[in-house]
Protein backbone atom coordinates (compact mmCIF):
# COMPACT_ATOMS: atom_id res chain seq x y z
CA UNK A 1 0.00 0.00 0.00
CA UNK A 2 1.13 3.53 -0.83
CA UNK A 3 -0.25 6.67 0.74
CA UNK A 4 -0.58 9.59 -1.68
CA UNK A 5 -1.06 13.15 -0.42
CA UNK A 6 -2.06 16.38 -2.19
CA UNK A 7 -1.68 19.88 -0.82
CA UNK A 8 -2.91 23.41 -1.38
CA UNK A 9 -4.00 24.31 -4.92
CA UNK A 10 -3.51 20.69 -6.09
CA UNK A 11 -5.64 19.34 -3.23
CA UNK A 12 -8.42 21.73 -4.24
CA UNK A 13 -8.18 21.12 -7.98
CA UNK A 14 -8.36 17.35 -7.48
CA UNK A 15 -10.74 17.59 -4.55
CA UNK A 16 -8.52 14.95 -2.97
CA UNK A 17 -6.49 15.25 0.19
CA UNK A 18 -5.25 11.69 0.42
CA UNK A 19 -5.67 8.31 -1.25
CA UNK A 20 -4.27 4.84 -0.81
CA UNK A 21 -3.27 2.57 -3.67
CA UNK A 22 -1.80 -0.90 -3.94
CA UNK A 23 1.76 -0.76 -5.21
CA UNK A 24 2.31 -1.99 -8.77
CA UNK A 25 5.42 -4.07 -9.38
CA UNK A 26 8.54 -2.02 -10.16
CA UNK A 27 6.72 1.24 -9.80
CA UNK A 28 8.37 4.67 -10.03
CA UNK A 29 6.79 8.04 -9.33
CA UNK A 30 6.43 8.44 -13.12
CA UNK A 31 4.45 5.23 -13.49
CA UNK A 32 2.31 6.20 -10.49
CA UNK A 33 1.58 9.56 -12.13
CA UNK A 34 0.64 7.84 -15.41
CA UNK A 35 -1.72 5.53 -13.53
CA UNK A 36 -3.36 8.43 -11.65
CA UNK A 37 -3.89 10.33 -14.93
CA UNK A 38 -5.32 7.21 -16.60
CA UNK A 39 -7.80 6.78 -13.76
CA UNK A 40 -8.54 10.46 -13.14
CA UNK A 41 -8.63 12.11 -16.54
CA UNK A 42 -7.86 15.58 -17.78
CA UNK A 43 -8.03 17.36 -14.45
CA UNK A 44 -5.42 15.04 -13.01
CA UNK A 45 -3.24 15.39 -16.09
CA UNK A 46 -3.25 19.18 -15.70
CA UNK A 47 -2.06 18.94 -12.10
CA UNK A 48 0.39 16.05 -12.34
CA UNK A 49 2.02 17.26 -15.57
CA UNK A 50 2.26 20.83 -14.28
CA UNK A 51 5.66 22.53 -14.45
CA UNK A 52 5.02 23.46 -10.85
CA UNK A 53 4.76 19.92 -9.52
CA UNK A 54 6.92 19.16 -6.49
CA UNK A 55 7.29 15.49 -5.52
CA UNK A 56 8.22 14.24 -2.06
CA UNK A 57 8.63 10.57 -1.18
CA UNK A 58 8.69 9.80 2.53
CA UNK A 59 8.94 13.54 3.15
CA UNK A 60 12.05 14.01 1.04
CA UNK A 61 11.90 15.92 -2.23
CA UNK A 62 12.86 13.78 -5.24
CA UNK A 63 12.29 13.52 -8.96
CA UNK A 64 9.85 11.40 -10.94
CA UNK A 65 12.40 8.64 -11.54
CA UNK A 66 12.35 7.65 -7.88
CA UNK A 67 11.49 3.96 -7.25
CA UNK A 68 8.62 3.29 -4.87
CA UNK A 69 8.34 0.48 -2.35
CA UNK A 70 5.47 -0.78 -0.24
CA UNK A 71 4.60 1.61 2.57
CA UNK A 72 5.93 4.74 0.86
CA UNK A 73 4.23 8.08 1.38
CA UNK A 74 4.14 10.15 -1.82
CA UNK A 75 3.18 13.82 -1.76
CA UNK A 76 2.37 16.12 -4.71
CA UNK A 77 2.33 19.84 -4.14
CA UNK A 78 2.94 23.25 -5.75
CA UNK A 79 5.98 25.44 -4.87
CA UNK A 80 5.88 26.46 -1.22
CA UNK A 81 4.84 29.95 -0.12
CA UNK A 82 5.23 30.06 3.66
CA UNK A 83 7.16 32.45 5.84
Amino acid sequence: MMRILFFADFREQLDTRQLELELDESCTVSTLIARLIRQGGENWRRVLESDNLVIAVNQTICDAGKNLVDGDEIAFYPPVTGG
Partner: protein
Amino acid sequence: MTEAAISIAVLVQSDDFDPTEQEAALLSAGAGVGAIVAFTGYVRGHSGGSTVERMELEHYPGMTENAIRGIVEQAAQRWALGAVSVIHRVGTLRVSERIVYVGVASAHRGDGFAACEFIMDYLKTRAPFWKKEYTEGGERWVEARQSDSEAASRW
Protein backbone atom coordinates in the same frame (compact mmCIF):
# COMPACT_ATOMS: atom_id res chain seq x y z
CA MET B 1 28.54 27.58 23.23
CA THR B 2 30.07 24.73 21.23
CA GLU B 3 28.16 23.33 18.30
CA ALA B 4 27.17 20.29 20.37
CA ALA B 5 25.39 22.54 22.85
CA ILE B 6 23.08 24.19 20.32
CA SER B 7 19.45 24.06 21.34
CA ILE B 8 16.86 23.92 18.53
CA ALA B 9 13.11 24.44 18.95
CA VAL B 10 10.71 24.09 16.01
CA LEU B 11 6.99 24.64 16.42
CA VAL B 12 4.13 24.66 13.89
CA GLN B 13 0.99 25.87 15.61
CA SER B 14 -2.21 27.82 15.12
CA ASP B 15 -1.79 29.84 18.32
CA ASP B 16 -0.01 33.17 18.49
CA PHE B 17 3.19 33.49 20.56
CA ASP B 18 5.08 36.15 22.52
CA PRO B 19 8.48 37.24 21.11
CA THR B 20 9.69 38.26 24.58
CA GLU B 21 9.04 34.74 25.89
CA GLN B 22 10.88 33.29 22.90
CA GLU B 23 13.81 35.56 23.62
CA ALA B 24 13.92 34.46 27.26
CA ALA B 25 14.02 30.82 26.16
CA LEU B 26 16.83 31.55 23.67
CA LEU B 27 18.83 33.36 26.35
CA SER B 28 18.80 30.25 28.51
CA ALA B 29 21.47 28.96 26.11
CA GLY B 30 23.78 30.57 28.66
CA ALA B 31 25.92 33.51 29.66
CA GLY B 32 27.83 33.30 26.36
CA VAL B 33 24.89 34.77 24.43
CA GLY B 34 25.71 38.32 23.32
CA ALA B 35 23.19 38.72 20.51
CA ILE B 36 19.71 37.67 19.54
CA VAL B 37 18.57 38.36 15.99
CA ALA B 38 14.85 37.81 15.58
CA PHE B 39 12.78 37.92 12.43
CA THR B 40 8.99 38.14 12.65
CA GLY B 41 6.83 37.96 9.55
CA TYR B 42 3.32 39.47 9.47
CA VAL B 43 0.26 39.27 7.26
CA ARG B 44 0.36 42.35 5.03
CA GLY B 45 -2.83 44.23 4.29
CA HIS B 46 -2.20 44.58 0.59
CA SER B 47 -1.19 42.14 -2.12
CA GLY B 48 -0.86 43.01 -5.79
CA GLY B 49 -3.29 45.92 -5.52
CA SER B 50 -5.94 44.03 -3.54
CA THR B 51 -6.87 44.51 0.10
CA VAL B 52 -6.23 41.30 2.01
CA GLU B 53 -8.87 40.31 4.57
CA ARG B 54 -7.25 37.14 5.89
CA MET B 55 -5.03 34.23 4.97
CA GLU B 56 -5.23 30.50 5.37
CA LEU B 57 -1.97 28.69 5.93
CA GLU B 58 -1.67 24.99 5.13
CA HIS B 59 1.30 22.73 5.85
CA TYR B 60 2.48 19.13 5.52
CA PRO B 61 2.56 17.85 9.10
CA GLY B 62 5.77 16.01 9.89
CA MET B 63 7.65 17.00 6.76
CA THR B 64 7.36 20.69 7.62
CA GLU B 65 8.95 20.32 11.04
CA ASN B 66 11.69 18.06 9.67
CA ALA B 67 12.44 20.46 6.81
CA ILE B 68 12.80 23.40 9.20
CA ARG B 69 14.99 21.40 11.56
CA GLY B 70 17.20 20.43 8.63
CA ILE B 71 17.55 24.08 7.60
CA VAL B 72 18.47 25.09 11.16
CA GLU B 73 21.05 22.31 11.34
CA GLN B 74 22.63 23.55 8.12
CA ALA B 75 22.81 27.03 9.61
CA ALA B 76 24.43 25.64 12.77
CA GLN B 77 27.17 24.06 10.68
CA ARG B 78 27.94 27.36 8.94
CA TRP B 79 27.78 29.78 11.85
CA ALA B 80 28.54 29.69 15.60
CA LEU B 81 25.08 29.57 17.17
CA GLY B 82 23.88 29.01 20.74
CA ALA B 83 20.15 28.45 20.23
CA VAL B 84 17.58 28.74 17.46
CA SER B 85 13.82 28.90 17.75
CA VAL B 86 11.45 28.76 14.79
CA ILE B 87 7.67 29.11 15.10
CA HIS B 88 5.37 29.04 12.09
CA ARG B 89 1.64 29.50 12.42
CA VAL B 90 -1.01 27.70 10.35
CA GLY B 91 -4.76 28.12 9.94
CA THR B 92 -6.57 31.44 9.66
CA LEU B 93 -4.48 34.60 10.09
CA ARG B 94 -5.69 38.19 9.84
CA VAL B 95 -3.87 41.35 8.73
CA SER B 96 -0.96 42.33 11.00
CA GLU B 97 -0.98 38.96 12.77
CA ARG B 98 2.33 37.15 13.19
CA ILE B 99 2.99 34.36 10.67
CA VAL B 100 6.53 33.25 11.44
CA TYR B 101 9.29 33.83 13.98
CA VAL B 102 12.97 32.93 13.62
CA GLY B 103 15.11 33.75 16.66
CA VAL B 104 18.85 33.10 16.73
CA ALA B 105 21.03 33.45 19.84
CA SER B 106 24.80 33.66 19.32
CA ALA B 107 27.93 35.06 20.92
CA HIS B 108 28.50 37.58 18.10
CA ARG B 109 26.02 39.51 16.01
CA GLY B 110 27.46 38.65 12.59
CA ASP B 111 26.65 34.95 13.05
CA GLY B 112 23.14 35.78 14.23
CA PHE B 113 22.28 38.09 11.32
CA ALA B 114 23.59 35.67 8.70
CA ALA B 115 21.97 32.58 10.22
CA CYS B 116 18.59 34.25 10.77
CA GLU B 117 18.40 35.52 7.18
CA PHE B 118 19.64 32.18 5.79
CA ILE B 119 16.98 30.27 7.76
CA MET B 120 14.22 32.60 6.54
CA ASP B 121 15.37 32.44 2.90
CA TYR B 122 15.51 28.64 3.02
CA LEU B 123 12.24 28.31 4.91
CA LYS B 124 10.51 30.44 2.25
CA THR B 125 11.59 28.12 -0.55
CA ARG B 126 11.89 24.70 1.11
CA ALA B 127 9.50 24.27 4.03
CA PRO B 128 6.11 22.93 2.86
CA PHE B 129 3.69 25.72 3.72
CA TRP B 130 1.13 27.26 1.39
CA LYS B 131 -0.74 30.54 1.74
CA LYS B 132 -4.19 31.32 0.44
CA GLU B 133 -5.25 34.96 0.41
CA TYR B 134 -8.84 36.10 0.87
CA THR B 135 -9.43 39.54 -0.66
CA GLU B 136 -12.47 41.60 -1.63
CA GLY B 137 -12.16 40.05 -5.06
CA GLY B 138 -12.17 36.44 -3.87
CA GLU B 139 -9.62 33.88 -2.80
CA ARG B 140 -6.39 32.78 -4.42
CA TRP B 141 -3.36 30.67 -3.67
CA VAL B 142 -0.27 32.82 -3.37
CA GLU B 143 2.27 32.10 -6.11
CA ALA B 144 5.90 31.38 -5.36
CA ARG B 145 8.07 34.43 -5.99
CA GLN B 146 11.16 34.46 -8.13
CA SER B 147 12.76 36.89 -5.66
CA ASP B 148 12.49 34.24 -2.93
CA SER B 149 14.31 31.68 -5.07
CA GLU B 150 17.00 34.24 -5.79
CA ALA B 151 17.33 35.09 -2.10
CA ALA B 152 17.83 31.43 -1.22
CA SER B 153 20.32 30.81 -4.02
CA ARG B 154 22.70 33.49 -2.68
CA TRP B 155 23.82 31.25 0.19
